[in-house]
């Protein structure tokens, strides 16, 4: 019997990924940092840390907080800025043969447009609009929670960028459906969902009759939000036709299948990279093993089988 070739590839508007396992923005650095733990180029793609026009130093004070089944972060988009990215990181990505999606964020529509233009000019094949980061004072989240604003933003970026345009959705909205439709109507090639859930961690110490309080207000991520993400993806998959890249607490191969079953075409791994720094590569291997063992020759066949039930 001839060995079937295994086709795990995913293509979105010309952006080719060898498999559907992607690492999420902010959890995997800019390029090959995770090579110390696993083979980064074996992944479908990595999403870079959110990049802004200018470098940012992020928030002061405590930035991360562990919670039951997850974590809260308020990094505040500390990043090296697009210029340093192009100069220092892009060459490494290209040299290592790592497929990547540039995650961009801004304070104004103009910021996004400029970043998209820069991406276009530098032949970057995929960008992800972070319109949903709850950790910065201005911009960002506001675009992601109002359907009209989002629609207009996506439309403007679309006009300036012809490759794969992914819009990353916030779960902190009353209607998942409306916001996903706005992204689709604005011209997105795909949506990714979800960004972090608004959350707060409080740590109290009681010393000498007085309380000392530390708070971390930011975005909740990790396994605890998987049910929120499943629900979100399930709902939007009923109203939009463009591909959905699922994010939220994905850790195990079962998790990946669960998201396929509600309509995801690919997945992103975030917080799990911290707990299991080789999680993403392991998922690629698990997926391959499963497909070989049960005779699935390409990804959509598997996705149909899980979804169809």
């Amino acid at each position, binding site marked *: 019997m001839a060995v079937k070739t295994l086709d795990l590839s995913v293509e979105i508007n010309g952006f080719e990924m060898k498999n559907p396992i992607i690492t999420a923005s902010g959890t995997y650095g800019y390029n090959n940092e995770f090579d*110390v733990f696993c083979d980064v180029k074996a992944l479908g793609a990595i999403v870079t840390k959110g990049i802004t026009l200018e470098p940012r130093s*992020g928030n002061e004070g405590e930035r991360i907080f*562990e919670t039951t*089944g997850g974590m809260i*972060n308020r990094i505040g988009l*500390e990043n090296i800025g697009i210029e340093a990215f192009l100069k220092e990181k892009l060459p490494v990505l290209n040299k290592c043969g790592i497929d990547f999606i540039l995650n961009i964020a801004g304070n104004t529509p103009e910021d996004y447009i400029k970043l998209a233009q820069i991406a276009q000019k530098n032949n970057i094949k995929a960008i992800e609009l972070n319109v949903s980061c709850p950790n910065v004072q201005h911009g960002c989240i506001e675009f992601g929670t109002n359907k009209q604003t989002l629609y207009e933003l996506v439309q403007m970026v679309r006009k300036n960028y012809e490759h794969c345009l992914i819009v990353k959705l916030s779960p902190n909205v009353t209607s998942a459906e409306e916001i996903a439709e706005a992204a689709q109507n604005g011209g997105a090639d795909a949506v990714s969902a979800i960004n972090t859930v608004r959350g707060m961690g409080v740590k109290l110490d009681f010393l000498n009759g007085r309380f000392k309080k530390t708070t971390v207000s930011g975005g909740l991520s990790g396994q605890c939000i998987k049910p929120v993400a499943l629900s979100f993806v399930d709902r939007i998959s009923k109203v939009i036709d463009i591909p959905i890249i699922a994010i939220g607490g994905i850790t195990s191969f079962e998790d990946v299948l669960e998201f396929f079953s509600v309509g995801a075409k690919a997945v992103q791994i975030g917080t799990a990279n911290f707990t299991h*720094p080789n999680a993403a590569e392991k998922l690629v291997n698990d997926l391959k093993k499963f497909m070989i063992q049960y005779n699935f020759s390409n990804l959509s066949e598997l996705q149909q089988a899980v979804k169809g039930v």
Partner: protein
Amino acid sequence: MGKNNQGTIKDIQKISEEVYSVKIYAPTVDEILPGQYISILCEGLTFRRPFSVSDFDNHIITVLIKKRGKGTEYILSRKVGSSIEFSAPLGNVFSVENKKTLLIGAGIGAAPLFYLNKKLKELKVKTFFAAGFLSKDDIIVTPHPTLSRKGRGEYDFVSTDDGSNGNKGSICDYLEKLIAEFKPEKIVSCAPRPVLKIVAQTAQQHGLDCEICMEKVMACGIGVCRGCVIQLMQGDRVINKTVCKDGPVFNGKEVVWQ
């Protein structure tokens, strides 16, 4: 590749009121230097837990663990012989140089200094190891100290807050005296933040080199999540550095104390 390791717990021994010495056999770890740490996967928890290496010899990593919350409880409840997953080696290192070095530990902060002291002594660098604890039962003595001075193990000087062993008071109270007597060229310290601050400032007043080992809650351990940053003053610019990768060892002069 290779920073994620599977090891086997070889030994767990109680070495003070709340601190345990844990020995891990790590066949895939070839080298760890003083100042570096390992980060242990604890079942059910999102963050791995970082611990300074307090000795490394022939694939055996020794960490000294103080019981705190779920993570340390998980590790200390593991049976000898059971496997354990961890990232290593992580972080930067103490600089090893031929300078007369005063080591200042406080509480569990003594942990990485054992390893540094050992290395320095091997290289015949003169050291003086001083450490402060709450009380005599809190004094951390490694399971097989090479020296034993009345239950004070390898320390050349001990203070306890209650005076129950060694000199009475905080180790900070004796800093000037120790500097005056030992005349170090360099101070290396690992201790709670307030102690580190005093050590760094005292070193600066005396014009001494100073390396301090900092702590911060960590997620990624390799500098990518930016969760563990502290601020350094380099030249006249304040910049962010990660404790996990740029540290945990910093130049005492540069740290911006908030």
